Protein backbone atom coordinates (compact mmCIF):
# COMPACT_ATOMS: atom_id res chain seq x y z
CA UNK A 1 0.00 0.00 0.00
CA UNK A 2 1.19 3.49 -0.88
CA UNK A 3 0.03 6.12 1.59
CA UNK A 4 0.31 9.83 1.88
CA UNK A 5 -0.41 10.80 5.48
CA UNK A 6 -1.25 14.44 6.16
CA UNK A 7 1.27 15.61 3.63
CA UNK A 8 2.02 19.31 3.24
CA UNK A 9 4.50 20.97 0.94
CA UNK A 10 5.51 24.50 -0.03
CA UNK A 11 7.77 25.93 -2.70
CA UNK A 12 9.73 28.56 -0.73
CA UNK A 13 6.85 30.39 0.97
CA UNK A 14 4.10 29.40 -1.40
CA UNK A 15 2.01 26.54 0.02
CA UNK A 16 1.17 23.93 -2.57
CA UNK A 17 -0.25 20.98 -0.67
CA UNK A 18 -1.99 21.03 2.66
CA UNK A 19 -2.94 18.04 4.77
CA UNK A 20 -3.28 15.63 1.87
CA UNK A 21 -4.30 12.19 2.98
CA UNK A 22 -4.47 9.51 0.30
CA UNK A 23 -4.22 5.72 0.39
CA UNK A 24 -3.56 3.59 -2.64
CA UNK A 25 -4.09 -0.15 -2.23
CA UNK A 26 -1.56 -2.48 -3.68
CA UNK A 27 -2.81 -3.23 -7.14
CA UNK A 28 -4.99 -0.13 -7.15
CA UNK A 29 -5.58 2.06 -10.16
CA UNK A 30 -6.02 5.64 -9.00
CA UNK A 31 -6.58 8.82 -10.96
CA UNK A 32 -5.49 12.17 -9.50
CA UNK A 33 -7.50 15.01 -10.92
CA UNK A 34 -7.66 18.74 -10.43
CA UNK A 35 -7.31 22.05 -12.21
CA UNK A 36 -3.97 23.73 -12.91
CA UNK A 37 -2.29 24.77 -9.71
CA UNK A 38 -4.09 22.20 -7.62
CA UNK A 39 -0.80 20.50 -6.77
CA UNK A 40 -1.20 17.32 -8.85
CA UNK A 41 2.31 17.23 -10.23
CA UNK A 42 3.83 18.18 -6.89
CA UNK A 43 1.89 15.36 -5.30
CA UNK A 44 3.23 12.95 -7.86
CA UNK A 45 6.79 14.09 -7.20
CA UNK A 46 6.27 13.59 -3.49
CA UNK A 47 4.99 10.06 -4.11
CA UNK A 48 8.07 9.39 -6.25
CA UNK A 49 10.40 10.58 -3.53
CA UNK A 50 11.69 13.46 -5.65
CA UNK A 51 10.49 15.94 -3.04
CA UNK A 52 10.37 15.66 0.71
CA UNK A 53 7.14 16.66 2.47
CA UNK A 54 7.35 19.64 4.80
CA UNK A 55 5.09 17.74 7.15
CA UNK A 56 3.49 14.32 7.05
CA UNK A 57 4.81 11.06 5.60
CA UNK A 58 4.72 9.08 2.44
CA UNK A 59 4.91 5.38 3.16
CA UNK A 60 5.27 2.39 0.91
CA UNK A 61 4.22 -0.85 2.56
CA UNK A 62 4.44 0.96 5.89
CA UNK A 63 7.99 2.17 5.36
CA UNK A 64 8.60 5.91 5.12
CA UNK A 65 10.09 6.43 1.67
CA UNK A 66 12.44 9.15 2.84
CA UNK A 67 14.21 6.51 4.91
CA UNK A 68 14.57 4.16 2.00
CA UNK A 69 17.73 3.87 0.02
CA UNK A 70 17.35 5.48 -3.41
CA UNK A 71 17.95 2.34 -5.37
CA UNK A 72 15.59 0.26 -3.27
CA UNK A 73 12.88 2.84 -3.84
CA UNK A 74 13.69 2.87 -7.55
CA UNK A 75 12.97 -0.84 -7.73
CA UNK A 76 9.48 -0.21 -6.40
CA UNK A 77 8.43 3.15 -7.75
CA UNK A 78 8.77 4.30 -11.35
CA UNK A 79 7.65 7.49 -13.05
CA UNK A 80 6.50 8.15 -16.59
CA UNK A 81 6.78 11.94 -16.92
CA UNK A 82 4.71 14.06 -19.22
CA UNK A 83 7.62 14.75 -21.54
CA UNK A 84 11.09 13.40 -21.89
CA UNK A 85 13.74 15.61 -23.45
CA UNK A 86 17.05 13.95 -24.05
CA UNK A 87 20.22 15.97 -24.06
CA UNK A 88 21.91 13.41 -26.27
CA UNK A 89 20.53 10.78 -28.54
CA UNK A 90 20.37 7.22 -27.33
CA UNK A 91 18.91 4.11 -28.89
CA UNK A 92 15.63 2.79 -27.60
CA UNK A 93 17.30 -0.24 -26.12
CA UNK A 94 19.86 1.91 -24.29
CA UNK A 95 17.09 3.98 -22.77
CA UNK A 96 15.13 0.99 -21.58
CA UNK A 97 18.33 -0.48 -20.15
CA UNK A 98 18.72 2.68 -18.09
CA UNK A 99 15.77 1.42 -16.12
CA UNK A 100 17.98 -1.43 -14.94
CA UNK A 101 20.25 0.94 -13.05
CA UNK A 102 18.72 0.25 -9.62
CA UNK A 103 19.63 -3.41 -10.01
CA UNK A 104 23.28 -3.03 -10.97
CA UNK A 105 26.39 -2.50 -8.91
CA UNK A 106 28.64 0.47 -9.64
CA UNK A 107 30.81 -0.97 -12.36
CA UNK A 108 28.57 -3.84 -13.26
CA UNK A 109 27.53 -4.05 -16.88
CA UNK A 110 24.07 -5.02 -18.03
CA UNK A 111 23.93 -8.80 -18.34
CA UNK A 112 21.85 -11.15 -20.51
CA UNK A 113 19.05 -11.15 -17.93
CA UNK A 114 18.86 -7.37 -18.04
CA UNK A 115 18.68 -7.40 -21.79
CA UNK A 116 15.96 -10.01 -21.70
CA UNK A 117 13.97 -7.91 -19.26
CA UNK A 118 14.41 -4.84 -21.41
CA UNK A 119 13.13 -6.69 -24.44
CA UNK A 120 10.21 -8.01 -22.44
CA UNK A 121 9.11 -4.56 -21.40
CA UNK A 122 9.46 -3.32 -24.96
CA UNK A 123 7.24 -6.15 -26.07
CA UNK A 124 4.77 -5.34 -23.30
CA UNK A 125 4.47 -1.77 -24.59
CA UNK A 126 4.24 -2.93 -28.17
CA UNK A 127 7.51 -1.30 -29.22
CA UNK A 128 9.82 -4.24 -29.67
CA UNK A 129 10.30 -3.36 -33.34
CA UNK A 130 11.80 0.02 -32.38
CA UNK A 131 14.69 -1.44 -30.46
CA UNK A 132 17.51 -0.10 -32.63
CA UNK A 133 15.93 3.24 -33.47
CA UNK A 134 17.25 6.42 -31.89
CA UNK A 135 14.93 8.13 -29.49
CA UNK A 136 14.72 11.46 -31.27
CA UNK A 137 13.42 9.86 -34.44
CA UNK A 138 10.33 8.54 -32.68
CA UNK A 139 6.88 10.02 -32.64
CA UNK A 140 5.37 11.39 -29.43
CA UNK A 141 3.35 8.27 -28.82
CA UNK A 142 6.27 5.97 -29.43
CA UNK A 143 8.47 8.01 -27.07
CA UNK A 144 5.84 7.76 -24.37
CA UNK A 145 5.77 4.00 -24.67
CA UNK A 146 9.54 3.65 -24.64
CA UNK A 147 9.71 5.72 -21.48
CA UNK A 148 7.05 3.48 -19.99
CA UNK A 149 9.04 0.42 -20.96
CA UNK A 150 12.08 1.94 -19.30
CA UNK A 151 10.05 2.58 -16.16
CA UNK A 152 8.72 -0.97 -16.14
CA UNK A 153 12.24 -2.30 -16.45
CA UNK A 154 12.90 -0.88 -13.00
CA UNK A 155 10.49 -3.36 -11.49
CA UNK A 156 11.59 -6.58 -12.96
CA UNK A 157 13.46 -8.69 -10.43
CA UNK A 158 15.69 -11.45 -11.73
CA UNK A 159 18.65 -9.10 -12.12
CA UNK A 160 22.06 -10.25 -13.29
CA UNK A 161 23.48 -10.83 -9.79
CA UNK A 162 22.45 -14.14 -8.28
CA UNK A 163 21.97 -12.88 -4.76
CA UNK A 164 19.16 -10.50 -5.44
CA UNK A 165 16.77 -9.67 -2.67
CA UNK A 166 14.09 -8.72 -5.11
CA UNK A 167 11.42 -11.18 -6.05
CA UNK A 168 10.52 -11.20 -9.73
CA UNK A 169 7.83 -8.85 -10.84
CA UNK A 170 5.48 -11.75 -11.14
CA UNK A 171 5.43 -11.73 -7.35
CA UNK A 172 2.36 -9.62 -6.80
CA UNK A 173 2.69 -9.15 -3.08
CA UNK A 174 5.26 -6.36 -3.07
CA UNK A 175 3.83 -3.05 -4.07
CA UNK A 176 5.23 -1.75 -7.35
CA UNK A 177 3.95 1.65 -8.23
CA UNK A 178 3.86 3.23 -11.64
CA UNK A 179 3.29 6.98 -11.50
CA UNK A 180 2.15 8.62 -14.71
CA UNK A 181 1.97 12.36 -15.28
CA UNK A 182 -0.49 13.38 -17.99
CA UNK A 183 0.13 10.25 -20.02
CA UNK A 184 -2.23 11.25 -22.81
CA UNK A 185 -1.43 14.92 -23.24
CA UNK A 186 0.60 14.56 -26.42
CA UNK A 187 -1.05 11.44 -27.79
CA UNK A 188 -3.60 11.06 -30.50
CA UNK A 189 -6.81 9.18 -29.91
CA UNK A 190 -5.60 5.78 -30.91
CA UNK A 191 -2.55 5.98 -28.68
CA UNK A 192 -4.65 7.25 -25.83
CA UNK A 193 -6.71 4.10 -26.07
CA UNK A 194 -3.60 1.95 -26.35
CA UNK A 195 -2.06 3.54 -23.26
CA UNK A 196 -5.20 3.03 -21.23
CA UNK A 197 -5.35 -0.58 -22.33
CA UNK A 198 -1.70 -1.09 -21.46
CA UNK A 199 -1.99 0.37 -17.98
CA UNK A 200 -5.11 -1.67 -17.31
CA UNK A 201 -3.40 -4.82 -18.47
CA UNK A 202 -0.30 -4.27 -16.36
CA UNK A 203 -2.53 -3.63 -13.43
CA UNK A 204 -4.57 -6.73 -14.07
CA UNK A 205 -1.75 -9.13 -14.91
CA UNK A 206 1.03 -8.00 -12.60
CA UNK A 207 -0.92 -6.11 -9.98
CA UNK A 208 1.12 -3.05 -10.88
CA UNK A 209 -0.22 -0.23 -8.77
CA UNK A 210 -0.84 2.79 -10.98
CA UNK A 211 -1.38 6.42 -10.07
CA UNK A 212 -2.33 8.58 -13.02
CA UNK A 213 -2.35 12.38 -12.91
CA UNK A 214 -4.51 13.72 -15.65
CA UNK A 215 -6.59 16.58 -16.95
CA UNK A 216 -8.70 14.25 -18.95
CA UNK A 217 -11.73 13.36 -16.84
CA UNK A 218 -13.03 10.85 -19.32
CA UNK A 219 -9.73 9.08 -19.60
CA UNK A 220 -9.57 8.82 -15.82
CA UNK A 221 -13.14 7.69 -15.58
CA UNK A 222 -12.56 5.01 -18.17
CA UNK A 223 -9.36 3.68 -16.69
CA UNK A 224 -9.25 4.29 -12.94
CA UNK A 225 -11.19 2.46 -10.36
CA UNK A 226 -10.75 5.20 -7.80
CA UNK A 227 -10.13 8.92 -7.99
CA UNK A 228 -8.62 11.69 -5.89
CA UNK A 229 -9.77 15.20 -6.66
CA UNK A 230 -7.51 18.07 -5.59
CA UNK A 231 -8.15 21.74 -5.48
CA UNK A 232 -5.77 24.39 -4.14
CA UNK A 233 -3.63 21.73 -2.56
CA UNK A 234 -6.40 20.02 -0.65
CA UNK A 235 -8.29 16.82 -1.24
CA UNK A 236 -11.86 17.65 -2.14
CA UNK A 237 -13.01 14.10 -2.67
CA UNK A 238 -11.49 10.64 -2.92
CA UNK A 239 -12.87 7.16 -3.31
CA UNK A 240 -14.30 4.81 -5.93
CA UNK A 241 -14.83 6.51 -9.27
CA UNK A 242 -18.57 5.92 -9.37
CA UNK A 243 -19.03 7.62 -6.02
CA UNK A 244 -16.65 10.47 -6.49
CA UNK A 245 -17.30 11.61 -10.04
CA UNK A 246 -20.52 13.55 -9.61
CA UNK A 247 -21.68 16.90 -10.92
CA UNK A 248 -21.38 18.26 -7.38
CA UNK A 249 -17.71 17.37 -6.95
CA UNK A 250 -16.86 18.39 -10.50
CA UNK A 251 -18.47 21.74 -9.83
CA UNK A 252 -16.57 22.11 -6.55
CA UNK A 253 -13.22 21.27 -8.13
CA UNK A 254 -13.45 22.79 -11.62
CA UNK A 255 -16.11 25.50 -11.26
CA UNK A 256 -17.88 23.91 -14.16
CA UNK A 257 -21.40 22.60 -14.46
CA UNK A 258 -21.18 19.18 -16.01
CA UNK A 259 -23.32 16.28 -16.96
CA UNK A 260 -22.16 12.86 -15.79
CA UNK A 261 -23.76 9.75 -17.19
CA UNK A 262 -22.86 6.18 -17.93
CA UNK A 263 -21.97 5.49 -21.52
CA UNK A 264 -24.14 2.81 -23.13
CA UNK A 265 -21.30 0.91 -24.79
CA UNK A 266 -18.30 1.24 -22.49
CA UNK A 267 -20.33 1.32 -19.28
CA UNK A 268 -17.86 3.90 -17.96
CA UNK A 269 -18.86 7.27 -16.58
CA UNK A 270 -18.65 10.03 -19.13
CA UNK A 271 -18.33 13.72 -18.27
CA UNK A 272 -19.59 16.47 -20.53
CA UNK A 273 -18.97 20.06 -19.44
CA UNK A 274 -22.00 22.29 -19.88
CA UNK A 275 -21.31 25.76 -18.53
CA UNK A 276 -18.90 27.70 -16.38
CA UNK A 277 -20.10 28.39 -12.87
Amino acid at each position, binding site marked *: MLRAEQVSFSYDTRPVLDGVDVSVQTGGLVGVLGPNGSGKTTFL*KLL*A*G*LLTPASGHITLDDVDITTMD*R*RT*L*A*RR*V*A*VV*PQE*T*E*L*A*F*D*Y*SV*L*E*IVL*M*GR*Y*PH*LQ*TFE*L*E*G*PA*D*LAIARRTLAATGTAHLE*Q*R*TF*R*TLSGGEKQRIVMASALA*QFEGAPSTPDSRDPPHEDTNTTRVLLLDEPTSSLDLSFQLATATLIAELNRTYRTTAVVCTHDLNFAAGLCRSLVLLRDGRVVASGPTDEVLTPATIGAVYDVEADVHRHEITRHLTVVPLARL
Partner: protein
Amino acid sequence: MREATATLPALRPVSAGDLRRRIWLVQVGFGALAVAACIGAPLVGPTTISLRQVFDTTIPFGQNVDAQIFFIARLPRAFAGALVGGSLAAAGVVLQALLRNPLATPFTLGVSAGASLGAMLVITLGVPFTALRSAAVPVASFAGALGALAIVYFLATMRRQGLSTLVLLLAGVTLNSLFSAIILFVQYLADPAQTLQSVRWVMGNLDIGSYRPILWALGPMGLAFVAFARLPRALNLLTLGADSAAVRGINVLRTQRVAFLSASLATGAAVAVGGPIGFIGIIVPHLVRLLVGDDHRLVLPASIGLGAAFLVVCDVAARTVLSPMELPVGVITAMLGGPFFLWLLVRNR
Protein backbone atom coordinates in the same frame (compact mmCIF):
# COMPACT_ATOMS: atom_id res chain seq x y z
CA MET B 1 19.59 16.26 -34.40
CA ARG B 2 21.22 13.22 -35.95
CA GLU B 3 19.60 10.64 -38.16
CA ALA B 4 19.35 7.11 -36.88
CA THR B 5 22.14 6.06 -39.18
CA ALA B 6 24.66 8.55 -37.89
CA THR B 7 26.43 6.09 -35.66
CA LEU B 8 28.11 2.98 -36.95
CA PRO B 9 25.31 0.54 -36.19
CA ALA B 10 27.68 -2.16 -35.07
CA LEU B 11 28.68 -0.14 -32.06
CA ARG B 12 25.25 0.00 -30.51
CA PRO B 13 24.97 -2.97 -28.17
CA VAL B 14 22.60 -5.70 -29.17
CA SER B 15 23.66 -8.38 -26.77
CA ALA B 16 25.10 -8.39 -23.30
CA GLY B 17 28.51 -9.49 -24.48
CA ASP B 18 28.46 -6.68 -27.02
CA LEU B 19 28.66 -3.94 -24.46
CA ARG B 20 31.51 -5.58 -22.64
CA ARG B 21 33.35 -6.05 -25.91
CA ARG B 22 32.68 -2.48 -27.03
CA ILE B 23 33.97 -1.02 -23.81
CA TRP B 24 37.09 -3.13 -23.93
CA LEU B 25 37.66 -2.32 -27.58
CA VAL B 26 37.24 1.40 -27.03
CA GLN B 27 39.50 1.53 -24.00
CA VAL B 28 42.24 -0.48 -25.62
CA GLY B 29 41.91 1.13 -29.05
CA PHE B 30 41.88 4.74 -27.96
CA GLY B 31 44.39 4.04 -25.23
CA ALA B 32 46.76 2.58 -27.80
CA LEU B 33 46.23 5.67 -29.93
CA ALA B 34 47.30 7.90 -27.08
CA VAL B 35 50.31 5.76 -26.25
CA ALA B 36 51.37 5.65 -29.90
CA ALA B 37 51.21 9.43 -30.09
CA CYS B 38 53.30 9.79 -26.95
CA ILE B 39 55.92 7.36 -28.24
CA GLY B 40 55.98 8.78 -31.75
CA ALA B 41 56.01 12.46 -30.90
CA PRO B 42 59.47 12.69 -29.33
CA LEU B 43 60.89 10.95 -32.38
CA VAL B 44 59.60 13.60 -34.74
CA GLY B 45 60.71 17.18 -35.10
CA PRO B 46 62.56 19.80 -37.11
CA THR B 47 65.93 18.55 -35.86
CA THR B 48 66.95 15.05 -36.76
CA ILE B 49 68.18 13.17 -33.75
CA SER B 50 69.73 9.76 -33.49
CA LEU B 51 68.01 7.41 -31.05
CA ARG B 52 71.22 5.57 -30.47
CA GLN B 53 72.88 8.75 -29.34
CA VAL B 54 69.90 9.68 -27.22
CA PHE B 55 70.24 6.52 -25.17
CA ASP B 56 74.03 6.40 -25.24
CA THR B 57 74.91 6.58 -21.57
CA THR B 58 78.62 7.00 -22.18
CA ILE B 59 78.10 10.58 -23.27
CA PRO B 60 77.57 12.87 -20.26
CA PHE B 61 74.07 14.31 -20.36
CA GLY B 62 75.41 17.85 -20.33
CA GLN B 63 77.09 17.23 -23.67
CA ASN B 64 74.51 15.06 -25.36
CA VAL B 65 72.48 17.46 -27.47
CA ASP B 66 70.33 14.72 -28.96
CA ALA B 67 69.49 13.38 -25.53
CA GLN B 68 68.65 16.84 -24.28
CA ILE B 69 66.40 17.46 -27.26
CA PHE B 70 64.67 14.15 -26.60
CA PHE B 71 64.37 14.32 -22.81
CA ILE B 72 64.05 18.05 -22.23
CA ALA B 73 62.55 19.55 -25.32
CA ARG B 74 60.31 16.80 -26.64
CA LEU B 75 59.36 14.16 -24.08
CA PRO B 76 57.90 16.52 -21.47
CA ARG B 77 55.86 18.12 -24.23
CA ALA B 78 54.49 14.74 -25.22
CA PHE B 79 53.50 13.86 -21.67
CA ALA B 80 52.08 17.30 -21.05
CA GLY B 81 50.16 17.13 -24.30
CA ALA B 82 48.68 13.77 -23.39
CA LEU B 83 47.68 14.85 -19.88
CA VAL B 84 46.32 18.21 -20.92
CA GLY B 85 44.53 16.86 -23.99
CA GLY B 86 43.03 13.95 -22.08
CA SER B 87 41.94 16.17 -19.20
CA LEU B 88 40.35 18.83 -21.38
CA ALA B 89 38.52 16.29 -23.50
CA ALA B 90 37.23 14.43 -20.44
CA ALA B 91 36.18 17.66 -18.77
CA GLY B 92 34.33 18.60 -21.95
CA VAL B 93 32.41 15.33 -21.96
CA VAL B 94 31.49 15.62 -18.29
CA LEU B 95 30.39 19.23 -18.49
CA GLN B 96 28.34 18.62 -21.62
CA ALA B 97 26.51 15.88 -19.74
CA LEU B 98 26.15 17.97 -16.59
CA LEU B 99 24.82 21.03 -18.40
CA ARG B 100 22.85 18.85 -20.84
CA ASN B 101 24.27 20.90 -23.67
CA PRO B 102 26.55 19.59 -26.42
CA LEU B 103 28.03 23.06 -26.87
CA ALA B 104 29.44 23.27 -23.36
CA THR B 105 33.22 23.41 -23.12
CA PRO B 106 35.62 23.10 -20.19
CA PHE B 107 35.90 26.89 -20.28
CA THR B 108 32.16 27.62 -20.11
CA LEU B 109 32.05 27.80 -16.33
CA GLY B 110 34.74 30.37 -15.78
CA VAL B 111 37.54 28.09 -14.60
CA SER B 112 39.87 29.00 -17.43
CA ALA B 113 39.18 32.71 -17.02
CA GLY B 114 40.20 32.39 -13.38
CA ALA B 115 43.33 30.51 -14.39
CA SER B 116 44.20 33.19 -16.96
CA LEU B 117 43.74 35.93 -14.39
CA GLY B 118 46.02 34.15 -11.95
CA ALA B 119 48.73 33.72 -14.56
CA MET B 120 48.51 37.33 -15.72
CA LEU B 121 48.66 38.74 -12.22
CA VAL B 122 51.95 36.96 -11.70
CA ILE B 123 53.31 37.87 -15.12
CA THR B 124 52.45 41.51 -14.56
CA LEU B 125 52.85 42.11 -10.85
CA GLY B 126 55.66 39.69 -10.23
CA VAL B 127 56.33 37.30 -7.39
CA PRO B 128 57.34 38.38 -3.88
CA PHE B 129 59.62 35.46 -3.14
CA THR B 130 62.45 34.35 -5.34
CA ALA B 131 62.04 30.77 -4.21
CA LEU B 132 58.54 30.60 -5.69
CA ARG B 133 59.56 32.10 -8.97
CA SER B 134 59.88 28.98 -11.07
CA ALA B 135 56.48 27.68 -10.01
CA ALA B 136 54.81 31.08 -9.93
CA VAL B 137 52.81 31.14 -13.12
CA PRO B 138 51.40 27.59 -13.00
CA VAL B 139 50.65 27.83 -9.27
CA ALA B 140 48.97 31.22 -9.58
CA SER B 141 47.04 29.99 -12.55
CA PHE B 142 45.80 26.93 -10.66
CA ALA B 143 44.91 29.11 -7.68
CA GLY B 144 42.89 31.34 -9.99
CA ALA B 145 41.10 28.30 -11.36
CA LEU B 146 40.23 27.13 -7.85
CA GLY B 147 38.98 30.58 -6.97
CA ALA B 148 36.68 30.69 -9.97
CA LEU B 149 35.50 27.17 -9.21
CA ALA B 150 34.66 28.12 -5.63
CA ILE B 151 32.73 31.23 -6.64
CA VAL B 152 30.66 29.43 -9.26
CA TYR B 153 30.00 26.47 -6.98
CA PHE B 154 28.95 28.69 -4.11
CA LEU B 155 26.57 30.64 -6.32
CA ALA B 156 25.02 27.52 -7.78
CA THR B 157 24.45 25.80 -4.45
CA MET B 158 23.15 28.83 -2.58
CA ARG B 159 19.56 27.76 -2.96
CA ARG B 160 18.34 25.15 -0.52
CA GLN B 161 17.36 22.69 -3.14
CA GLY B 162 20.77 21.59 -4.25
CA LEU B 163 22.66 22.46 -7.39
CA SER B 164 20.98 24.40 -10.14
CA THR B 165 22.64 23.80 -13.50
CA LEU B 166 21.04 26.95 -14.84
CA VAL B 167 22.62 29.03 -12.11
CA LEU B 168 25.88 27.19 -12.73
CA LEU B 169 25.80 28.20 -16.35
CA LEU B 170 24.84 31.81 -15.64
CA ALA B 171 27.44 32.12 -12.91
CA GLY B 172 30.09 30.70 -15.23
CA VAL B 173 29.21 33.03 -18.07
CA THR B 174 29.13 36.03 -15.73
CA LEU B 175 32.45 35.09 -14.21
CA ASN B 176 33.97 34.78 -17.66
CA SER B 177 32.91 38.35 -18.47
CA LEU B 178 34.00 39.68 -15.12
CA PHE B 179 37.40 38.05 -15.23
CA SER B 180 37.93 39.13 -18.82
CA ALA B 181 37.34 42.72 -17.76
CA ILE B 182 39.78 42.38 -14.88
CA ILE B 183 42.31 40.78 -17.21
CA LEU B 184 42.05 43.73 -19.57
CA PHE B 185 42.66 46.06 -16.65
CA VAL B 186 45.72 44.07 -15.55
CA GLN B 187 47.07 44.22 -19.08
CA TYR B 188 46.54 47.96 -19.03
CA LEU B 189 48.90 48.15 -16.07
CA ALA B 190 51.50 45.97 -17.72
CA ASP B 191 54.52 47.12 -19.64
CA PRO B 192 54.77 46.04 -23.27
CA ALA B 193 56.98 43.05 -22.50
CA GLN B 194 54.53 41.77 -19.88
CA THR B 195 51.61 42.33 -22.21
CA LEU B 196 53.40 40.30 -24.85
CA GLN B 197 53.91 37.44 -22.39
CA SER B 198 50.30 37.57 -21.21
CA VAL B 199 48.93 37.50 -24.70
CA ARG B 200 51.26 34.66 -25.64
CA TRP B 201 50.32 32.65 -22.54
CA VAL B 202 46.68 32.71 -23.52
CA MET B 203 47.49 31.03 -26.81
CA GLY B 204 48.72 27.91 -25.05
CA ASN B 205 52.21 26.43 -24.81
CA LEU B 206 53.27 22.92 -23.88
CA ASP B 207 57.02 23.59 -24.06
CA ILE B 208 57.47 23.15 -20.34
CA GLY B 209 61.03 21.84 -20.51
CA SER B 210 60.82 19.86 -17.30
CA TYR B 211 58.73 17.17 -15.67
CA ARG B 212 57.92 19.10 -12.55
CA PRO B 213 54.75 20.82 -13.79
CA ILE B 214 53.53 17.41 -14.95
CA LEU B 215 54.18 15.84 -11.56
CA TRP B 216 52.35 18.65 -9.80
CA ALA B 217 49.42 18.42 -12.18
CA LEU B 218 49.11 14.69 -11.59
CA GLY B 219 47.68 15.41 -8.14
CA PRO B 220 44.51 17.26 -9.11
CA MET B 221 44.24 15.41 -12.41
CA GLY B 222 44.52 12.09 -10.60
CA LEU B 223 41.72 13.06 -8.23
CA ALA B 224 39.60 14.17 -11.14
CA PHE B 225 40.19 10.96 -13.06
CA VAL B 226 39.28 8.81 -10.08
CA ALA B 227 35.96 10.65 -10.02
CA PHE B 228 35.59 10.32 -13.79
CA ALA B 229 35.82 6.56 -13.47
CA ARG B 230 32.56 6.38 -11.54
CA LEU B 231 30.60 8.94 -13.49
CA PRO B 232 29.74 7.50 -16.92
CA ARG B 233 26.65 5.54 -16.05
CA ALA B 234 25.25 8.34 -13.91
CA LEU B 235 25.93 10.76 -16.76
CA ASN B 236 23.97 8.51 -19.08
CA LEU B 237 20.98 8.67 -16.80
CA LEU B 238 21.33 12.40 -16.30
CA THR B 239 20.61 12.72 -20.01
CA LEU B 240 17.02 11.79 -19.27
CA GLY B 241 16.69 14.78 -16.99
CA ALA B 242 17.37 15.26 -13.29
CA ASP B 243 14.01 13.91 -12.12
CA SER B 244 14.05 10.88 -14.38
CA ALA B 245 17.56 10.07 -13.25
CA ALA B 246 16.66 10.48 -9.57
CA VAL B 247 13.69 8.22 -9.91
CA ARG B 248 15.94 5.50 -11.29
CA GLY B 249 18.08 5.66 -8.20
CA ILE B 250 20.75 8.22 -9.11
CA ASN B 251 21.84 10.61 -6.38
CA VAL B 252 21.51 13.56 -8.70
CA LEU B 253 22.95 16.19 -6.41
CA ARG B 254 26.02 14.16 -5.64
CA THR B 255 26.52 13.29 -9.29
CA GLN B 256 26.26 16.93 -10.31
CA ARG B 257 28.65 18.01 -7.60
CA VAL B 258 31.20 15.35 -8.44
CA ALA B 259 30.88 16.08 -12.15
CA PHE B 260 31.35 19.81 -11.70
CA LEU B 261 34.21 19.56 -9.24
CA SER B 262 36.13 16.88 -11.10
CA ALA B 263 35.73 18.55 -14.49
CA SER B 264 36.80 21.90 -13.04
CA LEU B 265 39.76 20.40 -11.23
CA ALA B 266 40.96 18.67 -14.39
CA THR B 267 40.49 21.85 -16.41
CA GLY B 268 42.25 23.99 -13.82
CA ALA B 269 45.26 21.68 -13.74
CA ALA B 270 45.36 21.45 -17.55
CA VAL B 271 45.26 25.22 -17.98
CA ALA B 272 47.90 25.69 -15.30
CA VAL B 273 50.27 23.44 -17.26
CA GLY B 274 49.65 24.53 -20.83
CA GLY B 275 47.50 27.63 -20.83
CA PRO B 276 43.89 27.74 -22.02
CA ILE B 277 44.09 25.58 -25.13
CA GLY B 278 40.72 25.75 -26.77
CA PHE B 279 38.58 23.48 -28.94
CA ILE B 280 39.82 20.18 -27.58
CA GLY B 281 37.01 20.09 -25.03
CA ILE B 282 34.47 20.30 -27.80
CA ILE B 283 35.96 18.80 -30.96
CA VAL B 284 37.05 15.57 -29.33
CA PRO B 285 33.79 14.70 -27.53
CA HIS B 286 31.81 15.40 -30.70
CA LEU B 287 34.12 13.31 -32.88
CA VAL B 288 34.00 10.50 -30.37
CA ARG B 289 30.22 10.56 -30.20
CA LEU B 290 30.08 10.29 -33.96
CA LEU B 291 32.23 7.18 -33.76
CA VAL B 292 30.97 5.32 -30.69
CA GLY B 293 27.54 6.71 -29.85
CA ASP B 294 26.45 8.48 -26.68
CA ASP B 295 26.99 5.91 -23.96
CA HIS B 296 29.37 7.69 -21.63
CA ARG B 297 31.00 4.43 -20.69
CA LEU B 298 32.40 4.50 -24.21
CA VAL B 299 32.55 8.25 -24.78
CA LEU B 300 34.59 9.11 -21.69
CA PRO B 301 37.52 6.70 -22.14
CA ALA B 302 37.52 7.28 -25.90
CA SER B 303 37.65 11.04 -25.42
CA ILE B 304 40.53 10.79 -23.01
CA GLY B 305 42.51 8.72 -25.48
CA LEU B 306 41.62 10.77 -28.52
CA GLY B 307 42.10 14.06 -26.68
CA ALA B 308 45.57 13.00 -25.59
CA ALA B 309 46.59 11.85 -29.07
CA PHE B 310 45.05 14.88 -30.74
CA LEU B 311 46.87 17.42 -28.62
CA VAL B 312 50.17 15.60 -28.86
CA VAL B 313 49.89 15.66 -32.65
CA CYS B 314 48.90 19.34 -32.67
CA ASP B 315 51.91 20.07 -30.51
CA VAL B 316 54.25 18.28 -32.89
CA ALA B 317 52.84 20.49 -35.63
CA ALA B 318 53.27 23.55 -33.40
CA ARG B 319 56.98 23.00 -32.97
CA THR B 320 57.74 21.70 -36.45
CA VAL B 321 55.73 23.54 -39.08
CA LEU B 322 57.41 26.95 -38.88
CA SER B 323 60.63 25.93 -37.20
CA PRO B 324 62.55 27.59 -35.53
CA MET B 325 59.44 29.60 -34.78
CA GLU B 326 56.95 28.07 -32.45
CA LEU B 327 53.34 28.29 -33.51
CA PRO B 328 51.08 28.50 -30.47
CA VAL B 329 49.37 25.15 -30.04
CA GLY B 330 46.08 26.88 -29.24
CA VAL B 331 46.18 28.45 -32.69
CA ILE B 332 46.53 25.03 -34.29
CA THR B 333 43.62 23.55 -32.34
CA ALA B 334 41.59 26.62 -33.30
CA MET B 335 42.46 26.29 -36.97
CA LEU B 336 41.28 22.71 -36.86
CA GLY B 337 38.31 23.48 -34.65
CA GLY B 338 36.78 26.28 -36.66
CA PRO B 339 36.33 24.35 -39.90
CA PHE B 340 35.20 21.34 -37.88
CA PHE B 341 32.38 23.38 -36.41
CA LEU B 342 31.35 24.66 -39.79
CA TRP B 343 31.26 21.10 -41.02
CA LEU B 344 29.12 20.08 -38.03
CA LEU B 345 26.70 22.89 -38.76
CA VAL B 346 26.47 21.98 -42.42
CA ARG B 347 25.81 18.32 -41.88
CA ASN B 348 23.20 18.99 -39.24
CA ARG B 349 21.21 21.44 -41.27
